[in-house]
């Protein structure tokens, strides 16, 4: 038999149902001790920044932005609240947010018209993903990938230098199907939300262990910073060689190949910058908890673990920008834990059969509940200015399709959580009168004090009321 193992010979990490419990043991300790010194945002930076500073609140605390994506849209009737304004009544799907009512804005009538078929035909799932944070029309091709820089990466370019990681990209799509992707769109469109250039998607981290190690270093608590320093020293010592090697190779390559090598060169430069900047931040936080050791078998645990990592990243001010793709659009996972064994995508084309609609709605609500748990943690954690982490955050939760059954892209199901350090007005349901989603992005970018960003994607302005 074949002894050469490839992706099929699943190693230990697969069956790691373990991790979350161990991990949470550690987290619990942190939660119980909000003033736990080593998890406070860095003092170096934490010397409160003056108002109007990049990615900072008026009180000088860090201001974070996150974009969360859930697959296959949501059943519209069950999603939208009854009344607009402050005395809205939550719909069945959003019911899970009731406790967080005063911290969220349900955003109606935001559109992603670039995700419409236009002349490109089928492929609403590929577009649902790739347009979500880019707001541009993506090129229909199986190999010649072209989207746009995503809003989180636009922000990262200006505020990324403030934190150890310019941005954090997470996903729960650990297994990619092997066949071609949606309607002859390259798979890169459906598995990536973040794009650092129109041709370079930013691959998200789907292994909780690797995401944790990226933030805090490898090894046991107490050893991680030393390990990080050792690894960085090793990296630094070969960067000159590989950079030179890349330049020499570049001279031998054709234009198309150079684009590929440019990605390598960009990577080297980013690592150099990160290492150079590391000195400014002092030792990385070293949470007193075991490193999660792989991908949990249960999807619910997996999702919560990734949310925990985002929460930890914000709490330690490791980054101010995060994206999280819960599952790519068109995802066909089943939800045995809530008694739904059909595939999500299969169900989402429900043909208005009440039984199927109900199941889709239950899945939508399940996702909302996971989100609500995350928000509760964010709210329960104190930031350096005494406000909650959630208060000092702007968290967009939404999808790239509105009605998954019909593949519509207007009136997208969007929730904006957090108060943006007091600059947002949560606690209501507001309709935005059919504006592009990208207008919301610009409004958030303004709050991050980004400069020079007149337009983004298909934007037509800023949201007046957010």
């Amino acid at each position: 038999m074949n002894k050469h193992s490839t992706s099929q010979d699943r190693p230990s990490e697969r069956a790691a149902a373990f991790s979350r419990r161990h991990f949470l043991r550690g987290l619990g300790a942190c939660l119980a001790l909000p003033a736990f010194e080593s998890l406070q945002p860095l003092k170096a930076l934490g010397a409160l920044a003056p108002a109007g500073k990049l990615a900072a609140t008026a009180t000088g605390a860090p201001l974070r932005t996150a974009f969360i994506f859930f697959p296959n849209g949501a059943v519209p009737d069950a999603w939208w609240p009854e009344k607009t304004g402050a005395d809205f009544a939550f719909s069945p799907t959003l019911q899970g947010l009731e406790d967080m009512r005063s911290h969220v804005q349900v955003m109606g009538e935001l559109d992603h018209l670039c995700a419409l078929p236009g002349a490109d035909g089928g492929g609403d799932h590929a577009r649902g993903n790739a347009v979500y944070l880019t707001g541009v029309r993506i090129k229909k091709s199986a190999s010649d990938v072209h989207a746009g820089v995503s809003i989180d990466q636009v922000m990262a370019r200006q505020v990324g230098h403030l934190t150890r990681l310019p941005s954090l990209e997470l996903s729960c799509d650990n297994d990619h199907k092997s066949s071609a992707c949606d309607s002859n769109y390259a798979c890169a469109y459906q598995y990536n939300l973040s794009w650092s250039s129109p041709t370079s998607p930013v691959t998200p981290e789907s292994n909780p262990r690797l995401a944790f190690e990226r933030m805090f270093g490898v090894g046991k608590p107490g050893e991680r910073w030393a390990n990080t320093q050792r690894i960085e020293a090793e990296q630094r010592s070969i960067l000159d060689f590989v950079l030179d090697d890349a330049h020499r190779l570049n001279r031998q390559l054709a234009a198309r190949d150079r684009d590929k090598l440019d990605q390598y060169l960009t990577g080297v430069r980013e690592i150099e910058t990160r290492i150079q900047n590391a000195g400014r931040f002092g030792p990385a936080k070293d949470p007193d908890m075991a490193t999660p050791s792989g991908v949990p078998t249960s999807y619910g645990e997996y999702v919560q673990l990734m949310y925990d990592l985002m929460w930890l990243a914000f709490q330690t001010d490791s980054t101010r920008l995060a994206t999280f793709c819960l599952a790519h659009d068109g995802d066909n996972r089943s939800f045995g834990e809530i008694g739904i064994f059909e595939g999500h995508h299969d169900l989402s084309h429900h043909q208005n059969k009440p039984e199927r609609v109900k199941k889709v709605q239950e899945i939508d609500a399940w996702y909302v509940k996971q989100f609500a748990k995350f928000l509760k943690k964010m709210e329960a954690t104190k930031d350096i200015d005494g406000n909650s982490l959630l208060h000092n955050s702007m968290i967009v939760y939404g999808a790239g399709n509105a009605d998954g059954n019909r593949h519509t892209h207007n009136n997208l199901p969007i929730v904006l959580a957090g108060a943006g350090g007091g600059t947002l007005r949560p606690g209501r349901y507001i309709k935005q009168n059919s504006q592009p989603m990208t207008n919301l992005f610009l409004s958030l970018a303004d709050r991050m004090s980004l400069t020079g960003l007149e337009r983004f994607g298909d934007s037509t302005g800023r949201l007046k009321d957010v």
Partner: protein
Amino acid sequence: MAACLGISAAARAADGARVFHKQIQPMLVQYCGDCHLDGMKKGNVSLDDFKTDRDALTNKDLWAMVLKNVRGNIMPPPKKEQPTAAERERLVQWIKFDVFGIDPRNIDPGRVTVRRLNRVEYRNTIRDLTGVDFDTDSEFPPDDTGYGFDDIGEVLNLSPMLLEKYLDAANRIVAQAVPAQSRVMPEKILPGRAFHATNAPGSEAWGNLSLSYYDPALVVNSFHAEHAGHYQVAVDLTANERYVEDQFDANKCRLIVRIDGKEVGRYEYGRESGQPFHYDYAQDWTAGDHQVALEIEPLTHEKQIRSLTLRLVSATIHGPADAQYWVEPPNYRRFFPKIVPADAAARHIYAREILGDFASKAFRRPADAETVERLTALAENRAQEPGATFEAGISHAFVAILASPRFLYRQEHAASTQATPFIDEYSLASRLSYFLWSTMPDAELMSLAAAGKLRAGLDNQVQRMLADPKAAALAKNFTGQWLQARDIDIVAVDPRTILSSQEKKDPHAEEMRAQFREFAAKDHLTAEEKEKFNKLREGFRKTFGRFNLQFDYDLRTAMRQEVELYFSHIVHEDRSVLDFLQSDYTFLNERLARHYGLTNLNVTGSQMRLVKLPADSPRGGVLTMGGVLAVTSNPTRTSPVKRGLFVLDNILGNPPPPAPPNIPALEDIEKGAHDHDLTLRETLAIHREKPVCASCHNHMDPLGLAMENFNALGMWREHDHGEPIDCTGTLLSGESFQSPRELKQILVANHHLEFYRTLTEKLLTYALGRGLEPQDTETVDQIVDQMEKANGRFSALLGGVIHSIPFQKTRQSPLLGGPETAMTKEKS
């Protein structure tokens, strides 16, 4: 030169237009006019919507579609008047030569974008280069795919995060593989399986030993110390469980470790979810035998649910500590063939030798002198640091080599400065090796390339490579993607729903399920609700007991292996590729045979083997393999649409256009027919009544419905929801069938050329690492001709691909490497 090309292209265009008016248009009028001319655009296809001749001749997409449909006998439809073979051929030739601009005497090889090693290739290359098995599945993110494969240069991106992982991986791999000293403390590993209930020294067993939480056990092994001295004993184990959805196991056990009868450690374990544990014990030993014993004590007697086990990986004896007994590290000679010279100049030469050799292997072509010099400098600088050794310096340079873009990317060079030169021999060695083995070229390929003799002896090398166990990579990675066999491991299926839904719908059960979901969705249940909930759950367990089939790792693995072994069989026996469509054999083990209901073939045990199928078996061929049937299903039911699409995509090579963006309101039509629940077949029939759906679904659905006798688990069934299965159908090309067997026969008899072409396209795409373009049509046609002459033998396909111009050559672009680029040539 450029001007010259311009004239001939213009002349050819004029020629193409003339043929279009004289020969092609009359044919279109006669055979296609009713639906596709004069404003008729059935299926949104119009064959006269051109403003100019140029418009007509440059619309490659349109004519590529015409080519596919005419060759597949889909157009004109079977009921309409048919063109003669000669007429068809004339149209084909015009499309190939005039529209696509192919010059059969001078085929354009196309360009392959430089390829980054994908996860599989990286892992295999590292294994061959260093001996380390680096788990890229856990360490690297999944690769993006294009055209259905994960080796397509254009879509293999490199994000900064991945580069960082590569740097980190380089460090870890070198640290693991390359000794940093010439002498180390001796180390003896006693693998878990070498531990026994009674002392059995010298056991050759290897692997982990599983110890149950629930049963008391004592296992021992011993070690003979040659010398008295200080030793360290390290025990490594993991605490595991077998996952059972939503159910936990609260049992605990205790482990007691004794060395020479003296207790040195005592530990307790609960549910640890695969965590590793490592314990060290310092010992001062006399010369002679010493015993390590591990004892398990169950601590609880709760219900056993998850099968908790302690897995003893090994006990490792380090020592003696005294440096005079130290030994050469294992693996030392692999990287350091000689003793390190004491003399600095000789050491410099030795370092250069080692690094030149390793870099040339890693870069898959000779490393230039300048690079070797720089690597040597890197090594020497490191070796001069306090506490560092010569070996540590070399290791450091190895890290740089593994982080270099020349290792991570497969750059190719031209053998000459012609417009469409052969790729050089080193590039050819890599293309072959990554194609057939998914790894770097071995020493023989490299030395042939160095001598310039690889191309001349190509067929012998291909034979040798196919006979090598590494060729299993082709079966695994090609079928893994062409037939989606990789997805078998991850496809979501719910056996209970699938099996129970074959019976008549039970409204009572439906109601119970709905209630269960309602409770499950609630965060807090009252005591009363909790009790109800548990009752429901218990009830399900009982009713579902009948359907207690686990679609587990063993079954999935057997299904995947069936596909891979079947492919390898066709390769090694050089059988006709039509065996992929139909045969009287397959590969089974006991589990899979039982799954298929083939219980009377005397297939026992877990070993997969070649099995001759009974004469009336519906199996044989990939379309009726469990794995393929499962990955083309939804989690709870079959999907005739997905299955049909799979056949069109991967067998007939005529995928329909993507589904329309706005799914039409199927429900509206369906409302009228709601006196009973529609069967899948009825739903699809209504679907096909809508014109916008019909054009594609008439094509897909019959192919999928033909497989309805196989449920979503790939098992044979006679009923769905209590109704007998109807799998009859008629293909768009006109043939009718009564059973999956008949469909397979039709495919073999009438559609084998389409299958040859599809398989050729897939294999060529995989081999080249780029999508095929219209210009490749002639190459594919030539290979299909060769296959037809050779009765479909696999060797004709493989030889055809390897000898093809796109595989052998490249299109020179101004800056493609080589000793002298076309650009510099022009300037001179």
